């Protein structure tokens, strides 16, 4: 979507918001956020402060999509996974998940499920057409001998109700795949997750 379209949509959002009293986040400009209005008279899209506000948001993850979910007890604690997106292109597949759980003040669960690694490399996206379970890329050291880490997020050290985004970069899906099963260690697989192609 071009910025022109975005800003036009933003304007439409303002018009809609005016007619309601919802507290839900809306793409409306504000005196404090100042995004598109505060400096418009000087022909800039944003002030420095307004741009920062637009990127930094309100400190929550409430604006993220939900295309699937799973929950269950893992190692004695409740864990909820909100699948935000499965985005595919010729280069590969990106999985985005928000993990939530009770903040017990102790390190997060999955210490057994995740094995010896501290990252989320145990996630899988199942490409039924190709017959493969896609897993995150890993990175070797310069010698090509030792595992240096994963092209995926570190597992959250502590979970909480506010959630933490974890991501994983995986191999390409079969072209045209419209939905996949997402498997998260310790939780039931989530079938029918819509794929967004770009």
């Amino acid at each position: 979507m071009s910025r022109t379209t975005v800003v036009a949509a933003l304007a439409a959002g303002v018009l809609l918001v005016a007619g309601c009293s919802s507290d839900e986040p809306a793409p409306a400009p504000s005196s404090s956020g100042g995004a598109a209005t505060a400096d418009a008279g000087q022909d800039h899209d944003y002030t420095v402060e307004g741009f920062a506000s637009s990127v930094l948001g309100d400190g929550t993850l409430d604006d993220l999509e939900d295309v699937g979910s799973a929950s269950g007890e893992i190692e004695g604690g409740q864990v909820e996974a909100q699948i935000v997106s499965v985005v595919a292109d010729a280069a590969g597949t990106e999985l985005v998940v928000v993990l939530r759980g009770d903040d017990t003040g102790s390190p997060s669960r999955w210490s057994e499920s995740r094995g010896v690694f501290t990252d989320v490399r145990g996630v899988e996206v199942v490409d039924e057409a190709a017959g493969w379970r896609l897993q995150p890329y890993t990175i070797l050291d310069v010698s090509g001998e030792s595992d240096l880490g994963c092209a995926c997020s570190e597992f959250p050290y502590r979970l909480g109700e506010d959630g933490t985004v974890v991501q994983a970069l995986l191999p390409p899906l079969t072209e045209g795949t419209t939905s996949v099963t997402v498997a998260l260690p310790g939780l039931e697989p989530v079938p029918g997750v819509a794929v967004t192609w770009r």
Partner: protein
Amino acid sequence: MQTRPRRTPRWPVALLAAAALTLPTAPAHAAAAPEPGSTVDVAGVDVPVHGTFSLRAAGNASRDLVRGAVHGVRRVEGGTAVYLSLGLPASASRSLPLSSIFTRSRDYESSALAAVTLVDRPGMTAYVPLRGGDAAPYSSDVSEFRALKPGELVVLWAVFPELPAGTRTVDVLVGDARAAVTGVPVEDGALEPVADDLVPQAGEGWPKIAEGDALAGAEAPWSVRPLVQHRGSVDEVTDVAETAEEVDATLAADVLFDKSSATLTAASQDAIARLAADIAARGTGEVRVVGHTDSDGSDSSNQTLSEQRAAAVVAALQPASGTAVTFVAEGRGESEPVAPNTSPENMQLNRRVTVSYQVQEATR
């Protein structure tokens, strides 16, 4: 050659401003972040936004949410510059040390921004920041900037090795948490204008980066890392780990063979056929087939069984694998477990046959 970021018309902004001014009851929420791929004018500075990310410092969900954006992956003389910004929401109660997001690495100068990675998935290569700067790191000098303040979006940078000419997009992993922004286009030239501040806020100009002669001391080859692609078959018979040069396939012996047998089962045929087809399509040189067992039984019987199983797999693969490869069969018995033989699940993992082969570059 330097390419200016794409600009877009400003008339919708005026429309938005007019709409907002006539709507005094609109709630005080911040505007949405710019869409990925857009360029916006921030106080007179063109600011490309290729994607946004979020992370929690130290992986701790009780900490304030850090958000940021990737503004550019730019080819510069002698390297590739990455520009990103990040900060805390204005509502955050306190500042956040940068070191809780970018842990220092012993491999780098103490003031270097080390925890940023570029991933080129089609090229099967990852890149970490250049190191070797004698006078200053090849990145934002984090010793000059210690903490994020609420409401400020500060711009950081790091220089990586030169990317291959054919690399058009990369993924950027940010911080110890490895928050990802994917599909960032690789463009030409450092971002301008250059700010006076070493660590400016987004919209105040861009930090001056190291390029050209300033990168003379860089150990570029050290910063280039092989990427490994992983996948497992849906029938859970085959697991594949693949680099740009080599494929390592692991076949589950429990499906290939009956217990203590070296005769392939009917259930093994699909996996064998699929592997042979891949070898025929792109394999080159020597195909190494190695049998492994768990720790049940004597060393000698396990050694023999592993050799027989490797030979059986070679006999099945070879006829359908073309003429560009040769085969070698080995048995390692129980000597190379991938997991401790302390549970049935682990012992099952150890009962396996591995098949390794080089791939022709043109087939990637």
